């Protein structure tokens, strides 16, 4: 396995890890966004609670959840290491830089945007993951089945303005992170082709706007009691 650790330590190997975990997190976002969008049905949370119950009780999804935590951890650790590596590569900086002419600010700020996402993520896990998996939560009955009432928990959490503001800022950071990250992951994995790269770039652009918008709508519409 010598060759494998050498690969993981190489500059390209580390970027391949970043790209693979990044795409994995994107897939997770699609699922997460889809399940949560059930609140827009506006049926007092029944569809959403059932979907969340399925996600929480299905064996394969619970296994995937462990994979998800491992993937996030790997992405964060590797990402922060990459970020910290920069200053070693250019110990004496430039007096004058015109970086904004040659690259986008968000492509140069992936570590900062990632850290903002991480801070948001900690709060987010505390709000929903901890009570639903560890400390416990109220339940509701649907067709003789007791399920966790995550919907009412959501309403409770999103009744505070500062929480809503933090969530919106969190998903904006996520949007910019993806604006660069989506297409960057494909490039890191070597998937660049004149025929498909423009498509990937457009897809990434759409994804980084649409997904954060849907996520932002959840706390906003709940706070404004449009979803009730």
């Amino acid at each position, binding site marked *: 396995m010598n060759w494998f650790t050498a690969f993981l330590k190489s500059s390209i190997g580390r970027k391949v890890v970043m790209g693979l975990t990044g795409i994995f997190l994107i897939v997770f976002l699609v699922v997460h966004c889809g399940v949560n969008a059930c609140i827009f049905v506006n049926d007092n949370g029944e569809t959403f609670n059932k979907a969340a119950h399925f996600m929480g009780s299905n064996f394969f999804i619970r296994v995937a959840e462990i994979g998800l935590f491992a993937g996030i951890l790997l992405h964060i650790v590797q990402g922060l290491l990459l970020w910290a590596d920069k200053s070693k590569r250019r110990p004496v900086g430039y007096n004058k830089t015109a970086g904004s002419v*040659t*690259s986008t600010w968000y492509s140069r700020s992936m570590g900062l945007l990632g850290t903002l996402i991480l801070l948001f993520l900690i709060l987010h896990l505390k709000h929903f993951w901890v009570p639903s998996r560890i400390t416990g939560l109220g339940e509701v009955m649907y067709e003789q089945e007791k399920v966790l009432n995550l919907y009412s928990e959501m309403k409770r959490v999103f009744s505070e303005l500062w929480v809503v503001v933090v969530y919106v800022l969190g998903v904006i950071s996520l949007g910019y992170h993806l604006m660069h990250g989506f297409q960057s992951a494909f490039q890191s994995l070597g998937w660049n082709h004149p025929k498909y790269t423009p498509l990937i770039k457009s897809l990434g652009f759409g994804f980084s706007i649409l997904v954060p918008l849907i996520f932002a709508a959840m706390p906003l519409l709940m706070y404004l009691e449009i979803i009730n």
Partner: protein
Amino acid sequence: MIMSGDMKLTLKVWRQKNSSAKGAFETYQVDGISKDMSFLEMFDVLNERLISEGKEPIAFDHDCREGICGMCSMYINGRAHGPWKGTTTCQLHMRAFNDGDTIVVEPWRSVAFPVVKDLVVNRSAFDRIIQAGGYISVNTGNAVDANSILIDKPDADKAFAAAACIGCGACVAACPNASAMLFTSAKVSHLALLPQGDPERKTRVNNMVRQMDIEGFGMCSNTGACEAECPKEISLENIARMNREYVSSVFAG
């Protein structure tokens, strides 16, 4: 013959005696600059004056002065080789600036490119990357007929575009991570695309990437600053190709 003109400029230039000295910016007023001079000729005017004043002229690298050798490395107003796209410093003309401008000139900044003196940096790290695999092994003897190996035209074009890299180091200088991926990938791609490069394809990419890492270049974060600043407009596609070549050399090699 040096032309003269009526541009007046303020230059802030990095001066450093040698690789271990500390270095600092010095400010110079230059006048009589013509818009038709190249940036290097503008430095020539200033250096002649410094010499006549008994001062140490500003050291900068240059050789061909026609955009093909890649020597004239310097960071001008925050840009590698100055503000023009697809140009080296020797091809940058003073009409890119306005009368009265202040221009900041610094050496490439990368731990792998130590400053030798003033604006001159040591780029032998690039030579060592080439030595690690940027070649093909052929037996000596009669020259083979050029048409004995047929090459697909699109591949030949891509290989040619990659081979246009002049090793100037602007990609490293402009990269926020001081990564040498664009340079190394141009050299890997050039040979990987050609049948002559095929036999050593896997060892080549492996050895060159290893050397690139040993030299202390950073990791690529796909910001694209290298491509934007490269005087030969080497494409990011080459980096993706190198990543593919590397991954397949590791997992299928």
